[in-house]
């Protein structure tokens, strides 16, 4: 695949979820991303090209970053299938189909845990702490620091993983998944989650330190209530509702006019 074709597929993968729906999920976006490459692979056979488009319009779902690795592997296999004939081609196409479904599910678990479950909270806390630090230092650019820190902490690894995934998938196919599983991802996840917890506690300390004694106590009680409610599975939205109701009850009884 030429660098220009890789750039076209990569650009289109940014629209992977642009038509996300409840039955095909990312299928439409994935087919759109692969379309330039399918047009090249199956250029001499219009019916085979229509079949290729149809099979990629089917259900597909994974983490948006994992889709780049899946796209690399699928592109490689489509090219291999197009070079075959007869039963060997049918077998290769059946393999593309099953591989895509399997890849989507297996990669999603790993990428969701790392990018959504660890890097996203850690990068958010980096942004919040950067804003608090800028505020304490008297910088007028606290919002820029917050946004910049949060975006950089997430996107530097995320775009590296996207680019590497697509290239590696194209180059070595399914072996890229084996290489991925050899990485110490679980220890990275644990490290990032611990960093997020540390960041949250530091942010609480810095924020509460700015308050008066009475408000500090209220903040501590709210924090403790939030810990208990989260451990008991109460959603943040419901917790906000409880806080609102609590405030109204306090207002009615004259505790907090």
């Amino acid at each position: 695949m030429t660098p220009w074709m890789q750039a076209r597929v990569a650009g289109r993968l940014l629209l992977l979820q642009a038509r996300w729906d409840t039955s095909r999920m990312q299928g439409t976006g994935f087919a759109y991303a692969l379309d330039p490459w399918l047009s090249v692979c199956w250029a001499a056979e219009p019916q085979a090209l229509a079949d290729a488009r149809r099979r990629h319009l089917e259900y597909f779902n994974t983490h948006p970053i994992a889709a780049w690795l899946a796209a690399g592997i699928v592109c490689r296999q489509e090219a291999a299938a197009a070079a075959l004939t007869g039963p060997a081609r049918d077998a290769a196409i059946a393999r593309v189909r099953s591989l895509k479904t399997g890849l989507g599910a297996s990669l999603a678990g790993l990428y969701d845990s790392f990018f959504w479950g660890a890097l996203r909270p850690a990068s958010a806390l980096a942004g919040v702490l950067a804003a608090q630090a800028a505020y304490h230092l008297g910088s007028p650019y606290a919002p820029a620091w917050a946004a910049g820190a949060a975006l950089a902490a997430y996107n530097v690894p995320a775009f590296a993983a996207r680019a590497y995934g697509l290239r590696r998938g194209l180059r070595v196919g399914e072996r890229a998944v084996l290489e991925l599983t050899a990485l110490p991802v679980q220890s990275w996840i644990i490290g990032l989650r611990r960093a997020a917890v540390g960041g949250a506690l530091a942010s609480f300390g810095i924020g509460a330190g700015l308050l008066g004694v009475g408000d500090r106590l209220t903040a501590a009680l709210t924090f403790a209530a939030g810990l208990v409610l989260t451990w008991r599975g109460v959603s943040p939205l419901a917790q906000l509702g409880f806080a609102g109701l609590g405030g109204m009850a306090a207002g009615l009884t004259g505790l907090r006019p």
Partner: protein
Amino acid sequence: MSTAAACLVLAVLELDAALVAQTLASRPLVVGALLGALTGETQAGMLFGAAFELLSLCDLPVGGCLTWSTPVAAGTATVIAAGGASIPFAFAGGVLAGILHTRAEAFERGRRASTGDELAGRAEAGGGALGRALAYSIGLHAAMTFAVAGGVAAAVLAVDRRWWADAPDFLRAGAALMAASAPWLGLAGVTAWGLRRS
């Protein structure tokens, strides 16, 4: 910056949440910071951004899960605050916008599924049908976000000007405690969630 222009910026930024790129430029912290700077409500934008960001960190956007749109909540709250409403009332307006946006998005996703087979039939022949469908979907979603944020902001600002100052104390106390507790509940949520899973 006018309310309509701010809602337009929000509608474009929000596309990043699911439809385009997922660079997290749509995260509440970024939306709040940017809209706060653009509307002259820097502190309110940062406060809403940080509060909604922390409250949303435990909601994983996995498998198309929709809970509430915190980017829309943070952006709308900032726009409402820039319109002159108090912080607690703007925060409540943001929560309402976030919930409404999610309901509208769920409807939108179901509607896309119902037209998926017809699109697939056209797409097999090539010719740009998929590209047009994706562009239409993006445009419709941005328009929906603009309508929800703008509608809620206009309604909340109208209530704020005509009624909120004379509202019963208990209602204002409820809104105040909800807004004041949000950052602490968010931080507690991240802490509890991180300790449980690590």
